[in-house]
């Protein structure tokens, strides 16, 4: 305003502007108290707003990754229990089979019954390996909508996803190897990224596929014997079942020798299964640790979001109280300066 002449209206005009400015400050302070936010539009603080939305995106991803992590961990946990069960059956089988006990027992007539039990244990093991978790078969790799293990039509061979686990042909070998190598990648917060060709960088994702054939073994060894534990159990069971029910004599020459050999191989198979079992346990443990990490990340993200967005209540209320005070003071002045002029004092 001009220094040398201030008119009646000039004073009013200036007062009006300042009063409105004061009122706007009060309104802004009130909005911050009501919403509890440091900024209520992108324009107020573009940098903070961009950061806030990025943090929220990370928060959603983190929640999804936690879900994934827990899903995989649960299915691994179920798989772990299943393998444990199957191992026990194998162990039982080994403890009771003819090599350690049967050949020396005076009661060789029990061999046939034992053989039957072993065969049933083999079936039970197959059923266990067909365990289903939440609509997916645990050990079916990338075909988990279909039952993985089945006996062939003639009942003599175990099929894994339609392929003979003994893998006697090249084609079968190729197929089974492919199934063992299958990957089902999930994002559990390892920084999932893709290569330029659209495939994921393997160190940034987690493979949740479990291949039943890998746990139980597959193929045929140099002696022509199956490597698969259940096939081994079946053959052992068949040999014992064919023994004479009265004196326990072996049905064919070479059966006893074969029984010995197969039992040793069953022990090897059990050892290998143990290795995989421990690996599975380690994996499940890793997922436990990962869950802790993800939960901690979630808390950090939450804090960061609040840090960026949330207004300190005390500060907000103080600002509002001060703005209110200034506004009231401005109102009070108004009534004093606007009313009078010389005319009011003229007689």
């Amino acid at each position, binding site marked *: 305003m001009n220094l040398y002449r201030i008119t*009646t209206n000039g004073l009013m005009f200036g007062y009006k502007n300042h009063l409105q400015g004061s009122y706007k400050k009060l309104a802004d302070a009130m909005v911050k108290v009501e919403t509890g936010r440091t900024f209520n539009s992108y324009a107020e603080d*573009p940098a903070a707003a961009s950061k806030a*939305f990025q943090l929220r995106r990370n928060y959603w991803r983190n929640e999804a990754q936690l879900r994934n992590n827990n899903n995989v961990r649960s299915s691994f946990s179920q798989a772990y229990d299943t393998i444990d069960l199957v191992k026990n059956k194998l162990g039982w089988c080994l403890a009771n089979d003819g090599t350690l006990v049967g050949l020396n027992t005076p009661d060789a007539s029990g061999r046939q019954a034992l053989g039957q039990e072993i065969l049933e244990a083999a079936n039970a093991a197959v059923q266990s390996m067909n365990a289903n978790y939440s*609509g997916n078969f645990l050990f079916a790799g990338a075909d988990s909508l279909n039952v993985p293990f089945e006996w062939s039509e003639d009942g003599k061979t175990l099929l894994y996803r339609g392929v003979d686990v003994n893998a006697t042909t090249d084609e079968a070998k190729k197929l089974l190897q492919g199934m063992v190598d299958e990957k*089902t990648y999930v*994002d559990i917060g390892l920084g999932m990224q*893709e290569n330029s060709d659209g495939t994921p960088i393997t160190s940034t994702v987690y493979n949740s596929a479990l291949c039943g054939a890998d746990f139980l073994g597959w193929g045929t060894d140099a002696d022509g014997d199956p490597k698969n534990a259940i096939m081994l159990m079946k053959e052992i069971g068949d040999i014992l079942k064919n023994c004479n029910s009265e004196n326990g004599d072996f049905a064919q020459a070479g059966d006893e020798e074969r029984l010995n050999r197969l039992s040793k191989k069953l022990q090897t198979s059990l050892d290998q299964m143990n290795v995989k079992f421990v690996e599975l346990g380690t994996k499940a443990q890793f997922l436990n640790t990962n869950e802790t990490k993800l939960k901690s990340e979630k808390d950090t993200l939450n804090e960061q979001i609040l840090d960026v967005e949330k207004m300190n209540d005390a500060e907000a209320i103080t600002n509002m109280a001060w703005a209110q005070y200034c506004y009231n003071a401005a109102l009070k002045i108004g009534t004093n300066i606007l009313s009078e002029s*010389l*005319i009011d004092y003229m007689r």
Partner: protein
Amino acid sequence: MGTISTAGAYNIAKLGIYAAQKAMEVTGNNITNINTPGYTRQRLEQKSMYMGGADRYSSKWEARVGGGVITTSVSQLRDPYLDIRYRTEMSSAAAYETKLKGLQQLAGVLDEVGKGSDDEGVFEAQFNDLIAQLTDMAASGAGKDEYDTLVRTSAKSLVSLFNTYAGKLETIRQNTLKSFEQDVNTINGILQKIQTLNDSIRKSDIHGGPGLELRDERNLLLDQLSEYVKINVRYESEPVGAGLTVEKLIVELDSEDGRLDANGDPLGNNGAQLINGRYITQFSIDTKPKDPNAPPDAPDEYVDNLSMTMGPLTSPSGKLMRVKNDAGNYVDSTAIKLTDNDLLGRLQANRELLTEVGEFSTQDTVDNVDPNAQTKRGIPYYQKALDLMAQKFAGSWNDANTLPDTFLYKVQTNNNGEPIDAAGNVLVADPQKGKYYLKDKPDTEGTPVFVDDQNNPLADQTDKTQYVDNPMYSHYNGGPLFSNNGNGNDISNITAANISISQAWATGATKILQTKQPIDPDHPQTTLQDNIQHLLSITADNNFEYKPSDLDPNLSNTTFFTGSYQGFLTKMCSTLAEDTRISNGRLENYVTAVNELYGDRDSVSGVDLNDEAINMMQYNKAYSASCRLLTTMDEMIDKLVNGTAV
């Protein structure tokens, strides 16, 4: 005059009384008009009357006395320089105010801060939800229809957000266009009013009146006009005959780089005049030539860049003004087409909001029209940006979900089962990219050959009815997921307004493709999900390059943003936010300047009650004194007449 008549002194008193009375009238006028907008305080001009001339009885020792006071005129106290400064600042302030209003409307649609449940935003939250659904599907939902439905439902919500936002932006554009049309009408109305006033002022001047109130009204209208366009106001003299001149108002456009003619030389005196005395122009928005096939009553369409034309200077009766052209000859005034930067003020601000496309400007615009076009962003910029985002989103999802026919149908292979092209070169398939490459030159694409059941090339490679299904892709249930119409599967020209879930996806004919790898139908892989993982990756993280040429091949090929979809959304919002902040800051500066100048103007021209009160007292006293003089004169003469030589 040396001698004065006996009753001559009465005249002095009478003149004194007249002057005081007139002054009181002026003071009264000032006081009563204190709240009249645009009123300039008036002052009575007084002059002492000089009695000149030869005197029959004069002598060089006599004392000449003035003849009293005469009131010569009533004048206004106004500083024209303050007017000029006020109007200059006003046009900038009004321009930024208009721009800010437009940007705030855009922010009302696009700004996500504080919206949505838990302040998650609306668009952002929907993208996050889509990613969450995809993540769940990739983790445990591959091959299960219900997960596909969940993703589709989330995608449908997202797509309808695109549609809604596009609709809202278009509504804003239509409203702004109406406001722009209204501005043009308002300007034309103001010009007409000024024309009427100019006429009245001219007549008043000719008859000797000061026309002060009329000038006040005119100044008010000029202030209003300055909000809409930046103007230069000057006054010239106009001869009206018999040696008499009156004042003539001339208002010109004050453009940034001055008025230029076709050669780029300054136009000089023939600048773009809005008002020249009684002659005014009228603004109009340029329209496209009428489509000969359109019905006769179809409304005119404006040209895309909303360029404007100032009509020829016309008198109230419709006569065109005669102006001097460059050759010095008098010709009829013609219309002037305005270039992009001629107008400043509210009109231009609205125009820029309606036409500026920022990075989507063509090279032609940058070279020939406005070198700053790439950094000016109006409503169309945000509409195009949203369209680009929709197109990228739909395009990348459709690409990820579709394999070309060369994979789905049998192609020619050699004895080793490797695909070969027509020349017999061995090809390598890349299902992820949907292409074949030469085995020897992995960077060069190859073209496989469609065959029949016996591995013989088909005569007509484009006849789809002859194609034989490739059994390795009997699992394929992919296809476009988004189309430009919910009733079809056409993926061309997808925009934010028309993006829809494709009919195939909506009916379940197409699903999210689990994998692009070939699968032996005898050995199914029902829960492969590498393609779902890929879809998740491109939705959540991928660094897409956004180029204006993606939307229109004639536009720039420079990448102006690299990032994910949500990143692009953030960029749009933060661009808008920065623009808003800058405009806000500038507006505050200009408003402060305007208010200061308003105060300065008021301090010169405004009525102050204290001032007038003192004036009243002063004139009151002068009136009393003159009356007293009259009384005294009367007494004196009375003495002479009735008391002397009786």
